[in-house]
Protein backbone atom coordinates (compact mmCIF):
# COMPACT_ATOMS: atom_id res chain seq x y z
CA UNK A 1 0.00 0.00 0.00
CA UNK A 2 1.84 3.08 -1.17
CA UNK A 3 0.48 6.53 -0.68
CA UNK A 4 2.16 7.92 -3.80
CA UNK A 5 0.28 5.56 -6.12
CA UNK A 6 -3.04 6.57 -4.58
CA UNK A 7 -2.23 10.26 -4.98
CA UNK A 8 -1.27 9.68 -8.61
CA UNK A 9 -4.57 7.89 -9.17
CA UNK A 10 -6.54 10.82 -7.77
CA UNK A 11 -4.64 13.33 -9.93
CA UNK A 12 -4.83 11.16 -13.03
CA UNK A 13 -8.57 10.57 -12.69
CA UNK A 14 -9.41 14.18 -11.91
CA UNK A 15 -7.10 16.20 -14.18
CA UNK A 16 -5.23 14.18 -16.78
CA UNK A 17 -7.98 11.75 -17.72
CA UNK A 18 -10.81 14.00 -16.61
CA UNK A 19 -13.98 12.08 -17.40
CA UNK A 20 -15.78 15.02 -18.94
CA UNK A 21 -12.96 16.61 -20.92
CA UNK A 22 -10.95 13.64 -22.14
CA UNK A 23 -13.38 10.69 -22.12
CA UNK A 24 -16.55 12.71 -22.78
CA UNK A 25 -18.66 10.78 -20.29
CA UNK A 26 -21.43 12.10 -18.06
CA UNK A 27 -22.26 14.89 -20.46
CA UNK A 28 -26.02 14.90 -19.86
CA UNK A 29 -25.70 15.93 -16.22
CA UNK A 30 -22.71 18.11 -17.06
CA UNK A 31 -24.78 20.26 -19.40
CA UNK A 32 -27.97 19.87 -17.37
CA UNK A 33 -26.90 21.33 -14.05
CA UNK A 34 -24.05 23.66 -15.04
CA UNK A 35 -26.29 26.60 -15.86
CA UNK A 36 -26.20 27.98 -12.32
CA UNK A 37 -23.32 27.86 -9.84
CA UNK A 38 -25.63 26.86 -6.99
CA UNK A 39 -26.87 23.68 -8.67
CA UNK A 40 -23.35 22.89 -9.91
CA UNK A 41 -21.95 22.99 -6.37
CA UNK A 42 -24.82 20.89 -4.98
CA UNK A 43 -24.34 18.30 -7.67
CA UNK A 44 -20.56 18.25 -7.17
CA UNK A 45 -20.84 17.44 -3.46
CA UNK A 46 -23.49 14.77 -3.92
CA UNK A 47 -21.74 13.23 -6.90
CA UNK A 48 -18.34 12.92 -5.25
CA UNK A 49 -19.86 11.29 -2.15
CA UNK A 50 -21.91 8.79 -4.17
CA UNK A 51 -18.92 8.04 -6.41
CA UNK A 52 -16.63 7.07 -3.54
CA UNK A 53 -19.19 4.86 -1.80
CA UNK A 54 -20.35 3.11 -4.95
CA UNK A 55 -16.76 2.45 -6.04
CA UNK A 56 -16.13 0.81 -2.66
CA UNK A 57 -19.39 -1.20 -2.70
CA UNK A 58 -18.84 -2.42 -6.25
CA UNK A 59 -15.30 -3.51 -5.40
CA UNK A 60 -16.51 -5.56 -2.42
CA UNK A 61 -19.24 -7.26 -4.45
CA UNK A 62 -16.94 -7.86 -7.43
CA UNK A 63 -14.12 -9.31 -5.35
CA UNK A 64 -16.11 -11.41 -2.86
CA UNK A 65 -19.23 -12.40 -4.77
CA UNK A 66 -18.72 -12.18 -8.50
CA UNK A 67 -15.21 -13.63 -8.82
CA UNK A 68 -15.89 -16.66 -6.51
CA UNK A 69 -19.17 -17.38 -8.32
CA UNK A 70 -17.51 -16.79 -11.71
CA UNK A 71 -20.20 -14.39 -12.89
CA UNK A 72 -17.95 -11.49 -13.87
CA UNK A 73 -19.62 -11.39 -17.28
CA UNK A 74 -22.67 -9.96 -15.52
CA UNK A 75 -20.75 -6.99 -14.17
CA UNK A 76 -22.59 -4.28 -16.13
CA UNK A 77 -26.02 -5.34 -14.84
CA UNK A 78 -24.82 -5.96 -11.31
CA UNK A 79 -22.97 -2.63 -11.05
CA UNK A 80 -26.03 -0.75 -12.28
CA UNK A 81 -28.09 -2.60 -9.68
CA UNK A 82 -25.63 -1.78 -6.89
CA UNK A 83 -25.53 1.92 -7.76
CA UNK A 84 -29.31 2.18 -8.13
CA UNK A 85 -29.93 0.34 -4.86
CA UNK A 86 -27.40 2.45 -3.00
CA UNK A 87 -28.69 5.75 -4.34
CA UNK A 88 -32.30 4.80 -3.62
CA UNK A 89 -31.53 3.75 -0.05
CA UNK A 90 -29.42 6.86 0.52
CA UNK A 91 -32.37 8.89 -0.74
CA UNK A 92 -34.80 7.21 1.65
CA UNK A 93 -32.49 7.33 4.67
CA UNK A 94 -31.61 10.98 4.08
CA UNK A 95 -35.27 11.91 3.88
CA UNK A 96 -35.86 10.40 7.33
CA UNK A 97 -32.63 11.36 9.09
CA UNK A 98 -31.87 14.80 7.73
CA UNK A 99 -34.73 16.49 5.90
CA UNK A 100 -32.77 19.75 5.46
CA UNK A 101 -29.92 17.95 3.70
CA UNK A 102 -32.45 16.03 1.63
CA UNK A 103 -34.14 19.24 0.62
CA UNK A 104 -30.77 20.64 -0.54
CA UNK A 105 -29.17 17.64 -2.23
CA UNK A 106 -31.95 15.07 -2.71
CA UNK A 107 -32.94 16.29 -6.13
CA UNK A 108 -29.46 15.51 -7.47
CA UNK A 109 -29.44 11.97 -6.09
CA UNK A 110 -32.13 10.80 -8.49
CA UNK A 111 -30.22 12.29 -11.42
CA UNK A 112 -26.97 10.54 -10.52
CA UNK A 113 -28.27 7.03 -11.26
CA UNK A 114 -28.51 7.98 -14.91
CA UNK A 115 -24.91 9.19 -15.12
CA UNK A 116 -22.51 7.06 -17.12
CA UNK A 117 -19.42 7.96 -15.05
CA UNK A 118 -20.99 6.18 -12.11
CA UNK A 119 -20.99 2.96 -14.15
CA UNK A 120 -17.66 3.62 -15.86
CA UNK A 121 -15.71 3.87 -12.61
CA UNK A 122 -16.60 0.39 -11.21
CA UNK A 123 -16.04 -1.12 -14.65
CA UNK A 124 -12.60 0.47 -14.98
CA UNK A 125 -11.75 -0.54 -11.40
CA UNK A 126 -12.68 -4.14 -12.21
CA UNK A 127 -10.87 -4.08 -15.54
CA UNK A 128 -7.64 -2.69 -14.08
CA UNK A 129 -7.81 -5.01 -11.02
CA UNK A 130 -7.37 -2.12 -8.60
CA UNK A 131 -7.14 -2.91 -4.89
CA UNK A 132 -9.78 -1.68 -2.47
CA UNK A 133 -8.03 1.58 -1.63
CA UNK A 134 -7.02 2.17 -5.24
CA UNK A 135 -10.67 1.80 -6.25
CA UNK A 136 -11.68 4.37 -3.66
CA UNK A 137 -8.91 6.74 -4.81
CA UNK A 138 -10.02 6.35 -8.41
CA UNK A 139 -13.63 7.00 -7.42
CA UNK A 140 -12.63 10.07 -5.44
CA UNK A 141 -10.51 11.41 -8.30
CA UNK A 142 -13.34 10.89 -10.78
CA UNK A 143 -15.77 12.66 -8.48
CA UNK A 144 -13.42 15.59 -7.93
CA UNK A 145 -12.70 15.83 -11.65
CA UNK A 146 -16.41 15.95 -12.41
CA UNK A 147 -16.92 18.55 -9.68
CA UNK A 148 -14.10 20.66 -11.14
CA UNK A 149 -15.60 20.44 -14.61
CA UNK A 150 -19.05 21.42 -13.32
CA UNK A 151 -17.81 24.41 -11.34
CA UNK A 152 -15.63 25.74 -14.20
CA UNK A 153 -18.49 25.33 -16.64
CA UNK A 154 -21.01 27.02 -14.35
CA UNK A 155 -18.73 30.03 -13.80
CA UNK A 156 -18.23 30.41 -17.56
CA UNK A 157 -21.92 30.01 -18.39
CA UNK A 158 -22.94 32.56 -15.79
CA UNK A 159 -20.43 34.98 -17.29
CA UNK A 160 -21.84 34.35 -20.77
CA UNK A 161 -25.38 35.14 -19.63
CA UNK A 162 -25.01 38.74 -20.81
CA UNK A 163 -23.02 37.96 -23.97
CA UNK A 164 -24.43 38.62 -27.41
CA UNK A 165 -24.20 35.04 -28.65
CA UNK A 166 -25.65 34.57 -32.17
CA UNK A 167 -29.20 33.21 -31.84
CA UNK A 168 -28.61 29.69 -33.25
CA UNK A 169 -25.80 29.17 -30.75
CA UNK A 170 -27.57 30.37 -27.60
CA UNK A 171 -27.85 27.93 -24.70
CA UNK A 172 -26.75 24.36 -25.33
CA UNK A 173 -24.78 24.76 -28.61
CA UNK A 174 -22.39 27.36 -27.20
CA UNK A 175 -21.99 25.16 -24.11
CA UNK A 176 -20.81 22.29 -26.30
CA UNK A 177 -18.31 24.64 -27.93
CA UNK A 178 -17.08 25.78 -24.51
CA UNK A 179 -16.69 22.15 -23.42
CA UNK A 180 -14.73 21.44 -26.59
CA UNK A 181 -12.41 24.40 -26.03
CA UNK A 182 -11.84 23.44 -22.38
CA UNK A 183 -11.05 19.90 -23.55
CA UNK A 184 -8.51 21.44 -25.96
CA UNK A 185 -6.86 23.22 -23.02
CA UNK A 186 -6.88 20.02 -20.96
CA UNK A 187 -4.84 18.17 -23.62
CA UNK A 188 -1.92 20.13 -22.17
CA UNK A 189 -1.93 17.71 -19.25
CA UNK A 190 -1.49 14.66 -21.49
CA UNK A 191 1.58 12.60 -20.85
CA UNK A 192 1.94 13.98 -17.33
CA UNK A 193 1.38 10.70 -15.50
CA UNK A 194 1.36 7.36 -17.23
CA UNK A 195 -0.35 4.71 -15.18
Amino acid at each position, binding site marked *: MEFGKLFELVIAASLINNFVFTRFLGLCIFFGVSRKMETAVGMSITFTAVMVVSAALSWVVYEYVMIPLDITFLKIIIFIGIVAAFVQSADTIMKKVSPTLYYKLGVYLALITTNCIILAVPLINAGEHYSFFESIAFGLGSGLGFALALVIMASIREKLEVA*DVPAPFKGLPISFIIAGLIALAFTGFSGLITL
Partner: protein
Amino acid sequence: MAEAKTHELVVSVSPHIRGKETVGRIMWTVNLSLLPAFIMSVYYFGPRAVYVTGLCIVASVLFEHAFQVSLKKKTTIGDGSAFLTGLLLGLNLPASSPFFIPIIGSFIAIVITKLLFGGLGYNIFNPALIGRAFLLISFPKLLTTWTEPTAKFIDMDAKTTATPLGILKEEGLVRLMEVFGSKTELYKSLFMGSTAGSLGETSAIALLIGAALLLARGYITWHIPVSYVATVGALAWVFGGEGLFTGDPLIHILSGSLILGAFFMATDYVSGPTVRKGQLIYGIGCGAITMLIRLKGGFPEGVMFAILLMNCFAPLIDRAVKPDLFGAVKEQKK
Protein backbone atom coordinates in the same frame (compact mmCIF):
# COMPACT_ATOMS: atom_id res chain seq x y z
CA MET B 1 -14.63 49.24 10.61
CA ALA B 2 -16.11 52.50 9.47
CA GLU B 3 -12.68 54.09 9.00
CA ALA B 4 -11.48 51.28 6.81
CA LYS B 5 -13.95 52.15 4.09
CA THR B 6 -13.46 55.82 3.46
CA HIS B 7 -13.62 55.66 -0.33
CA GLU B 8 -16.22 58.05 -1.54
CA LEU B 9 -17.75 57.86 -4.92
CA VAL B 10 -17.83 61.42 -6.16
CA VAL B 11 -19.89 62.13 -9.23
CA SER B 12 -19.70 65.76 -10.23
CA VAL B 13 -22.23 67.57 -12.34
CA SER B 14 -21.69 67.80 -16.05
CA PRO B 15 -19.84 68.77 -18.20
CA HIS B 16 -17.45 65.79 -17.85
CA ILE B 17 -14.08 65.53 -19.48
CA ARG B 18 -14.01 62.63 -21.89
CA GLY B 19 -10.99 60.34 -21.78
CA LYS B 20 -9.10 59.81 -25.00
CA GLU B 21 -8.81 56.03 -24.66
CA THR B 22 -10.89 53.85 -26.95
CA VAL B 23 -10.78 50.15 -27.72
CA GLY B 24 -9.26 50.95 -31.10
CA ARG B 25 -6.55 53.14 -29.62
CA ILE B 26 -5.50 50.46 -27.12
CA MET B 27 -5.57 47.65 -29.68
CA TRP B 28 -3.53 49.55 -32.26
CA THR B 29 -0.99 50.45 -29.57
CA VAL B 30 -0.64 46.76 -28.69
CA ASN B 31 -0.17 46.03 -32.38
CA LEU B 32 2.54 48.70 -32.49
CA SER B 33 4.24 47.26 -29.42
CA LEU B 34 4.60 43.92 -31.23
CA LEU B 35 6.42 45.62 -34.11
CA PRO B 36 9.95 45.11 -32.66
CA ALA B 37 9.28 41.38 -32.27
CA PHE B 38 7.95 41.24 -35.84
CA ILE B 39 11.04 43.06 -37.17
CA MET B 40 13.32 40.61 -35.35
CA SER B 41 11.38 37.67 -36.79
CA VAL B 42 11.81 39.08 -40.31
CA TYR B 43 15.52 39.62 -39.63
CA TYR B 44 16.06 36.03 -38.47
CA PHE B 45 13.57 34.06 -40.55
CA GLY B 46 13.43 36.12 -43.74
CA PRO B 47 10.43 36.60 -46.09
CA ARG B 48 8.67 33.55 -44.60
CA ALA B 49 7.95 35.62 -41.49
CA VAL B 50 6.17 38.29 -43.52
CA TYR B 51 4.27 35.65 -45.49
CA VAL B 52 3.01 33.65 -42.47
CA THR B 53 2.18 36.64 -40.27
CA GLY B 54 0.62 38.60 -43.14
CA LEU B 55 -1.58 35.67 -44.13
CA CYS B 56 -2.77 35.32 -40.52
CA ILE B 57 -3.67 39.01 -40.29
CA VAL B 58 -5.44 39.13 -43.65
CA ALA B 59 -7.38 35.92 -42.92
CA SER B 60 -8.39 37.07 -39.43
CA VAL B 61 -9.64 40.46 -40.58
CA LEU B 62 -11.51 38.94 -43.55
CA PHE B 63 -13.17 36.26 -41.40
CA GLU B 64 -14.33 38.85 -38.89
CA HIS B 65 -15.66 41.12 -41.61
CA ALA B 66 -17.42 38.32 -43.49
CA PHE B 67 -19.03 36.91 -40.34
CA GLN B 68 -20.34 40.25 -39.16
CA VAL B 69 -21.57 41.31 -42.58
CA SER B 70 -23.37 38.00 -43.09
CA LEU B 71 -25.13 38.43 -39.72
CA LYS B 72 -26.00 42.03 -40.65
CA LYS B 73 -24.02 43.42 -37.73
CA LYS B 74 -21.73 46.39 -37.64
CA THR B 75 -18.26 45.32 -38.69
CA THR B 76 -15.61 45.83 -36.00
CA ILE B 77 -12.46 45.28 -38.01
CA GLY B 78 -11.49 48.93 -37.56
CA ASP B 79 -10.81 48.51 -33.82
CA GLY B 80 -7.69 46.46 -34.51
CA SER B 81 -8.61 43.47 -32.38
CA ALA B 82 -8.89 41.07 -35.31
CA PHE B 83 -5.59 42.46 -36.61
CA LEU B 84 -4.04 41.79 -33.18
CA THR B 85 -5.38 38.23 -33.05
CA GLY B 86 -3.92 37.56 -36.50
CA LEU B 87 -0.60 39.13 -35.58
CA LEU B 88 -0.32 37.12 -32.33
CA LEU B 89 -1.28 33.90 -34.10
CA GLY B 90 1.30 34.56 -36.81
CA LEU B 91 4.03 35.28 -34.28
CA ASN B 92 3.18 31.97 -32.58
CA LEU B 93 3.60 29.84 -35.71
CA PRO B 94 6.82 28.31 -37.07
CA ALA B 95 8.32 29.97 -40.14
CA SER B 96 7.80 26.89 -42.31
CA SER B 97 3.99 26.79 -41.94
CA PRO B 98 2.26 26.03 -45.27
CA PHE B 99 -0.50 28.42 -46.41
CA PHE B 100 -3.47 26.54 -44.96
CA ILE B 101 -2.13 26.63 -41.40
CA PRO B 102 -2.65 30.40 -40.93
CA ILE B 103 -6.07 30.23 -42.60
CA ILE B 104 -7.44 27.37 -40.48
CA GLY B 105 -5.92 28.87 -37.34
CA SER B 106 -7.48 32.27 -38.03
CA PHE B 107 -10.90 30.70 -38.60
CA ILE B 108 -10.77 28.85 -35.27
CA ALA B 109 -9.44 31.93 -33.48
CA ILE B 110 -11.80 34.54 -34.89
CA VAL B 111 -15.03 32.71 -35.65
CA ILE B 112 -15.16 29.87 -33.12
CA THR B 113 -13.38 31.44 -30.16
CA LYS B 114 -14.40 35.07 -30.46
CA LEU B 115 -17.42 35.81 -32.63
CA LEU B 116 -19.59 32.84 -31.59
CA PHE B 117 -19.25 34.02 -28.00
CA GLY B 118 -20.54 37.46 -28.90
CA GLY B 119 -17.43 39.21 -30.18
CA LEU B 120 -14.73 41.21 -28.45
CA GLY B 121 -15.29 41.44 -24.71
CA TYR B 122 -17.11 38.14 -24.29
CA ASN B 123 -14.60 35.55 -25.45
CA ILE B 124 -13.68 33.19 -22.61
CA PHE B 125 -10.39 32.10 -24.17
CA ASN B 126 -7.57 33.96 -25.83
CA PRO B 127 -8.45 33.56 -29.54
CA ALA B 128 -4.88 33.38 -30.89
CA LEU B 129 -3.93 30.69 -28.37
CA ILE B 130 -6.98 28.53 -29.12
CA GLY B 131 -6.09 28.84 -32.81
CA ARG B 132 -2.55 27.72 -32.06
CA ALA B 133 -3.64 24.89 -29.75
CA PHE B 134 -6.11 23.61 -32.34
CA LEU B 135 -3.39 23.60 -34.99
CA LEU B 136 -0.89 21.89 -32.68
CA ILE B 137 -3.32 19.04 -31.95
CA SER B 138 -4.45 18.72 -35.57
CA PHE B 139 -1.09 19.11 -37.34
CA PRO B 140 1.52 18.18 -34.72
CA LYS B 141 4.25 17.54 -37.30
CA LEU B 142 3.87 20.83 -39.17
CA LEU B 143 3.61 22.88 -36.00
CA THR B 144 6.82 21.47 -34.50
CA THR B 145 9.06 21.72 -37.55
CA TRP B 146 11.37 24.57 -36.63
CA THR B 147 13.71 26.13 -39.14
CA GLU B 148 17.08 27.49 -38.17
CA PRO B 149 17.21 31.29 -37.98
CA THR B 150 19.63 32.25 -40.72
CA ALA B 151 19.54 36.05 -40.49
CA LYS B 152 20.06 36.12 -44.25
CA PHE B 153 17.29 37.77 -46.15
CA ILE B 154 16.93 35.11 -48.83
CA ASP B 155 14.15 32.60 -49.16
CA MET B 156 15.69 29.18 -49.36
CA ASP B 157 15.09 25.79 -47.87
CA ALA B 158 16.33 26.40 -44.37
CA LYS B 159 17.75 23.68 -42.18
CA THR B 160 15.35 22.30 -39.60
CA THR B 161 16.46 22.13 -36.02
CA ALA B 162 15.08 21.75 -32.49
CA THR B 163 14.12 24.53 -30.10
CA PRO B 164 16.23 25.01 -26.95
CA LEU B 165 13.37 23.68 -24.83
CA GLY B 166 12.97 20.72 -27.18
CA ILE B 167 16.66 19.86 -26.79
CA LEU B 168 16.39 20.33 -23.02
CA LYS B 169 13.43 17.97 -22.86
CA GLU B 170 14.68 15.25 -25.20
CA GLU B 171 18.43 15.28 -24.67
CA GLY B 172 19.12 17.26 -21.53
CA LEU B 173 21.13 20.26 -20.43
CA VAL B 174 24.53 18.82 -21.40
CA ARG B 175 23.53 18.56 -25.06
CA LEU B 176 22.10 22.10 -24.97
CA MET B 177 25.48 23.36 -23.74
CA GLU B 178 27.26 21.48 -26.56
CA VAL B 179 25.05 23.15 -29.17
CA PHE B 180 25.51 26.67 -27.90
CA GLY B 181 29.08 26.43 -26.56
CA SER B 182 28.82 28.21 -23.25
CA LYS B 183 26.15 29.48 -20.92
CA THR B 184 26.84 33.09 -21.86
CA GLU B 185 26.43 32.23 -25.53
CA LEU B 186 23.14 30.50 -24.79
CA TYR B 187 21.80 33.46 -22.83
CA LYS B 188 22.89 35.83 -25.58
CA SER B 189 21.16 33.78 -28.28
CA LEU B 190 17.99 33.52 -26.24
CA PHE B 191 18.04 37.21 -25.44
CA MET B 192 18.59 38.37 -29.02
CA GLY B 193 16.44 35.69 -30.60
CA SER B 194 18.82 33.69 -32.76
CA THR B 195 17.34 30.37 -31.65
CA ALA B 196 14.79 28.15 -33.31
CA GLY B 197 11.18 28.65 -32.35
CA SER B 198 7.95 30.36 -33.31
CA LEU B 199 8.38 33.55 -35.32
CA GLY B 200 7.84 36.13 -32.61
CA GLU B 201 8.75 34.28 -29.45
CA THR B 202 12.50 33.97 -29.77
CA SER B 203 13.75 37.50 -29.22
CA ALA B 204 13.35 38.46 -25.56
CA ILE B 205 14.80 41.95 -26.05
CA ALA B 206 12.35 42.91 -28.82
CA LEU B 207 9.40 41.67 -26.78
CA LEU B 208 10.56 43.54 -23.68
CA ILE B 209 10.80 46.80 -25.64
CA GLY B 210 7.18 46.37 -26.71
CA ALA B 211 6.12 45.38 -23.18
CA ALA B 212 7.82 48.50 -21.79
CA LEU B 213 5.66 50.64 -24.09
CA LEU B 214 2.48 48.94 -22.85
CA LEU B 215 3.52 49.28 -19.20
CA ALA B 216 4.44 52.93 -19.67
CA ARG B 217 1.08 53.69 -21.25
CA GLY B 218 -0.68 51.84 -18.44
CA TYR B 219 -2.39 49.43 -20.83
CA ILE B 220 -1.09 46.47 -18.87
CA THR B 221 -0.11 46.34 -15.20
CA TRP B 222 2.81 44.47 -13.70
CA HIS B 223 0.65 42.01 -11.75
CA ILE B 224 0.20 39.18 -14.25
CA PRO B 225 3.58 39.28 -16.07
CA VAL B 226 5.68 39.64 -12.92
CA SER B 227 3.87 36.95 -10.93
CA TYR B 228 3.97 34.66 -13.99
CA VAL B 229 7.68 35.09 -14.75
CA ALA B 230 8.67 35.00 -11.07
CA THR B 231 6.80 31.73 -10.51
CA VAL B 232 8.46 30.15 -13.53
CA GLY B 233 11.88 31.36 -12.35
CA ALA B 234 11.36 30.11 -8.80
CA LEU B 235 10.07 26.69 -9.87
CA ALA B 236 12.88 26.33 -12.43
CA TRP B 237 15.41 27.12 -9.72
CA VAL B 238 13.93 24.62 -7.24
CA PHE B 239 12.95 21.72 -9.49
CA GLY B 240 14.72 22.38 -12.81
CA GLY B 241 18.14 20.94 -12.01
CA GLU B 242 19.50 17.55 -11.07
CA GLY B 243 18.86 18.10 -7.39
CA LEU B 244 16.68 20.58 -5.55
CA PHE B 245 17.65 24.28 -5.75
CA THR B 246 20.18 23.75 -8.54
CA GLY B 247 18.08 24.62 -11.59
CA ASP B 248 18.82 27.48 -13.97
CA PRO B 249 15.94 29.96 -13.89
CA LEU B 250 17.26 32.14 -16.75
CA ILE B 251 17.09 29.39 -19.38
CA HIS B 252 13.44 28.76 -18.57
CA ILE B 253 12.54 32.45 -18.41
CA LEU B 254 14.18 33.41 -21.71
CA SER B 255 13.32 30.35 -23.78
CA GLY B 256 10.06 29.31 -25.34
CA SER B 257 7.18 31.72 -25.58
CA LEU B 258 7.20 32.76 -21.91
CA ILE B 259 7.98 36.46 -22.46
CA LEU B 260 5.50 36.71 -25.34
CA GLY B 261 2.86 34.83 -23.33
CA ALA B 262 3.37 36.63 -20.03
CA PHE B 263 3.34 40.18 -21.39
CA PHE B 264 1.09 39.98 -24.45
CA MET B 265 -1.29 37.05 -24.06
CA ALA B 266 -1.84 36.39 -20.35
CA THR B 267 -2.55 40.12 -19.92
CA ASP B 268 -5.54 39.97 -22.29
CA TYR B 269 -8.26 42.04 -20.60
CA VAL B 270 -11.10 39.80 -21.65
CA SER B 271 -9.91 36.29 -20.91
CA GLY B 272 -8.05 37.03 -17.67
CA PRO B 273 -9.31 38.15 -14.25
CA THR B 274 -9.95 41.84 -13.66
CA VAL B 275 -9.35 42.18 -9.91
CA ARG B 276 -5.69 42.82 -8.98
CA LYS B 277 -5.52 40.07 -6.36
CA GLY B 278 -7.05 37.69 -8.87
CA GLN B 279 -4.44 38.68 -11.42
CA LEU B 280 -1.67 37.64 -9.03
CA ILE B 281 -3.32 34.25 -8.46
CA TYR B 282 -3.77 33.92 -12.23
CA GLY B 283 -0.09 34.68 -12.90
CA ILE B 284 1.10 32.21 -10.28
CA GLY B 285 -1.23 29.55 -11.69
CA CYS B 286 0.06 30.15 -15.22
CA GLY B 287 3.65 29.84 -14.00
CA ALA B 288 3.01 26.66 -12.05
CA ILE B 289 1.22 24.91 -14.93
CA THR B 290 3.89 26.06 -17.41
CA MET B 291 6.66 24.52 -15.34
CA LEU B 292 4.61 21.38 -14.61
CA ILE B 293 4.21 20.77 -18.35
CA ARG B 294 7.81 21.73 -19.21
CA LEU B 295 9.37 19.49 -16.56
CA LYS B 296 6.92 16.58 -16.32
CA GLY B 297 4.45 16.78 -19.19
CA GLY B 298 4.36 15.37 -22.70
CA PHE B 299 5.02 18.70 -24.45
CA PRO B 300 8.33 20.61 -24.38
CA GLU B 301 6.55 23.95 -24.03
CA GLY B 302 3.68 24.71 -21.68
CA VAL B 303 2.97 28.43 -21.96
CA MET B 304 0.08 28.08 -24.40
CA PHE B 305 -1.71 25.36 -22.45
CA ALA B 306 -1.03 27.09 -19.13
CA ILE B 307 -2.68 30.33 -20.26
CA LEU B 308 -5.62 28.46 -21.80
CA LEU B 309 -6.13 26.43 -18.63
CA MET B 310 -6.03 29.54 -16.49
CA ASN B 311 -8.50 31.16 -18.93
CA CYS B 312 -10.93 28.40 -17.85
CA PHE B 313 -10.39 29.36 -14.22
CA ALA B 314 -10.48 33.14 -14.70
CA PRO B 315 -14.26 33.58 -14.12
CA LEU B 316 -13.93 31.42 -11.00
CA ILE B 317 -10.98 33.48 -9.70
CA ASP B 318 -12.90 36.69 -10.31
CA ARG B 319 -15.81 35.35 -8.27
CA ALA B 320 -13.54 34.31 -5.42
CA VAL B 321 -11.69 37.62 -5.00
CA LYS B 322 -14.60 39.91 -5.81
CA PRO B 323 -14.29 42.93 -3.51
CA ASP B 324 -17.17 43.76 -1.18
CA LEU B 325 -19.82 46.03 -2.56
CA PHE B 326 -19.49 49.53 -1.21
CA GLY B 327 -21.67 49.82 1.86
CA ALA B 328 -22.69 46.17 1.79
CA VAL B 329 -23.19 44.44 5.12
CA LYS B 330 -21.60 41.02 5.49
CA GLU B 331 -24.12 38.22 5.69
CA GLN B 332 -24.46 37.02 9.26
CA LYS B 333 -23.77 33.32 9.78
CA LYS B 334 -26.05 31.60 12.26
